[in-house]
């Protein structure tokens, strides 16, 4: 901490750095004490467990973890398993569609909320409500809405439109889109909230300047404000991505991976193999594969931040 403080190029801190050093030492001790449990948890739970999972993926562990190494056999079997291929494919479809829609609709909703509308609090609560609900409940409700015998299709047909067909979940070709609908319903509210915070963080002076220059409002939103809220966008994006990679409860509640294996997801594959199917080795190989996109995303975030920091340093 002290090094960071003294290395800081801004003059004011350097000027009274010596005077503060004594206090900084105490606060350093305090912060170390305060963060130690978190550091231990982070290393113990995350790092060690990830390494452990990674190692197990090269073993032929059945129900109980065993260190009987068999090379990359589990990975070979994994990528020859049709269900895993379907799962990996579904992750891309579900991820691209739901994240894309969430980001676009979330931004539009945030712009709408930014128009100094009445009852803003009420609307914000309504939009955020789905996110507060358990995905199991979301999944069950949508399953009933989309059920051909009780849901939307039966209701509309009951009104006399007997040709009306809308039951995506029962067809293996369309079931994944039913999941996307529920995923958007669940995720759009929180995206909006983050984007709205980003919008509100933009300095009012910028708006005044844009007004004086005669730039239309929509152009200001799109070309001036949007690039300025990079942080909010990135946060929303990363949150969504991590949510997608580990999507589990929504699928279990809505389709249980069916019809057939049409809506299987990697997380279900992992959980099922390390529990009921008693093949921990294969499950861990799948878990390691799931970790890859997350690692890529996180390094992307780090890279963007690093570049932004470097730019700022250069500007100073």
């Amino acid at each position, binding site marked *: 901490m002290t090094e960071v403080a003294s290395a800081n190029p801004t003059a004011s801190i350097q000027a009274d750095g010596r005077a503060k050093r004594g206090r900084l030492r105490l606060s350093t001790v305090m912060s170390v004490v305060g963060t130690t449990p978190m550091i231990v948890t982070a290393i113990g739970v995350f790092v060690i467990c990830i390494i452990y999972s990674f190692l197990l993926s090269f073993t032929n562990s*059945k129900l*109980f973890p065993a260190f009987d190494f068999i090379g990359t056999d589990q990975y070979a079997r994994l990528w020859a398993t*049709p269900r895993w291929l379907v799962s990996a494919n579904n992750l891309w479809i579900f991820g691209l569609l739901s994240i894309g829609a969430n980001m676009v609709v979330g931004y539009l909703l945030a712009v709408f909320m930014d128009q100094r509308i009445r009852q803003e609090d009420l609307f914000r609560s309504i939009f955020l409500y789905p996110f507060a609900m358990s995905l199991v409940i979301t999944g069950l409700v949508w*399953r009933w809405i989309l059920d051909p*015998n009780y849901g939307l299709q039966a209701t509309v047909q009951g009104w006399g439109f007997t040709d009306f067909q809308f039951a995506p979940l*029962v067809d293996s070709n369309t079931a994944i889109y039913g999941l996307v609908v529920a995923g958007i319903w669940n995720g759009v509210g929180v995206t909006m909230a983050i984007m709205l915070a980003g919008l509100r963080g933009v300095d009012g002076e910028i708006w005044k300047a844009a007004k004086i220059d005669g730039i239309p409002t929509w152009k200001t939103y799109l070309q001036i404000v949007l690039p300025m809220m990079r942080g909010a966008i990135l946060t929303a994006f990363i949150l969504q991505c991590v949510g997608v990679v580990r999507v589990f409860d929504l699928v279990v509640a809505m389709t249980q991976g*069916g*019809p057939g*294996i049409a809506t299987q997801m990697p997380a279900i594959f992992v959980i*099922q193999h390390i529990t009921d199917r008693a093949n921990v080795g294969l499950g861990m190989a799948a878990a390691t594969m799931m970790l890859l996109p997350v690692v890529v995303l996180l390094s992307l975030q780090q890279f963007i931040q690093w570049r932004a920091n470097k730019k700022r340093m250069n500007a100073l």
Partner: protein
Amino acid sequence: MKKFAVVAAMATAFLGTTAVHAADVEVIHWWTSGGEQAAVSVFADEFDKLGADKWVDTAIALGENARAATMQRVLGGNPPGAAQFNPGRQYEELIAAGLLLDLTPLAEAEGWDKIVRPDVIAAPCHIDGKWWCVPVNIHSEAWMWASVPAFKKAGVDLPTSVNDFVAKAPKLKEAGLIPYAQGGESWQLNAAFGGITIAGLGIEKRDELLRDHNQEVANSPEFTQVFQTFRDLKSFSDPGSPGRNWNDTTNLVLTDQAGVQIMGDWARGEFGVAGKKPGVDYACLPLDSKKPFVTTGGDIFVFFKQADPEVEAAQLKLASMMISPRVQALFNIAKGSMPVRDDVDMSLADECMKLGLEILKDPANVVTSANNWISNDTNGQLQDLIAEFWANDDMPIADAQKRYAEILATAD
């Protein structure tokens, strides 16, 4: 009661003390439908009546979820007192790891090896001379449950075999009924496919397929026909099938909206709870009435080693109670399954159960459960394949059959 006295005496002998205190035995099981609850209540009530020990019920819907929960508890070092499994290889690692309570002294005192029949039911628990679990019932997994009024409405007789049903199904469709009710969960699809496999290949060939992983049988034209029959059945099912529970599916037959469901004999419990009469409202039909068979699936309970000797005494008491003649009769009548011993008063049994017991008498009709040969891992792979084949009408039969053969060829 005499049996109980013996057990109580044994329990105290194990403890080396004369005082018997109360203990809780937590039991994880997956019996959650109406008929199943009625059956498990028999166990719980009878156990609570025995003394101060308490049955602590942990019911988790869907077998794979319940088994997963049990395994997680074991891995976490906090196993339940008892847990349900299907007989076979699901708990082989638990035995190997020495986590289970050895029931051999109790079993020898009560002579389980003499009373449990047929042998294929005792075998999954009685391994190398030691008893590791208690078989509680025999479930035949493949019956056709038919709605009598539905077939009357369509103007056709009840089917005598699966193939006969496929021939009659169009009539049911014309009458505005769902000919074939199938729940789309993969275990249900796999169970129906398993039944059709036995009916289609015959017991001997089917054993060669699943026990010996015989590639010749796996690639035979007879087996191709099994896949064809399964696809025919798909064409007579309803769009609400994906993801539907087995008991909701039974309900379609029960309310005469559907003609036939292929399901294990536990479906009988649902008809019983709804007050339906066999022969009048519904019929239980073998998948092939010329060569009827019963499969010997079922349920077993394992008991986990516990630190507390009082709990162990209660566990042994529970094990003994589960297999006692009176509880066997009460439980199996409620459950729709067959008792694991012959000396049980089954005067309360209905026609369907009597038919099952009749078929069971001839050892040539008894089919060994595939779980005895196939690990959960392999079974899961087959299940995924069957579910995919059912849902995807574009998947060529030849491809599905080839993949089935490959899974068996690489099975552990």
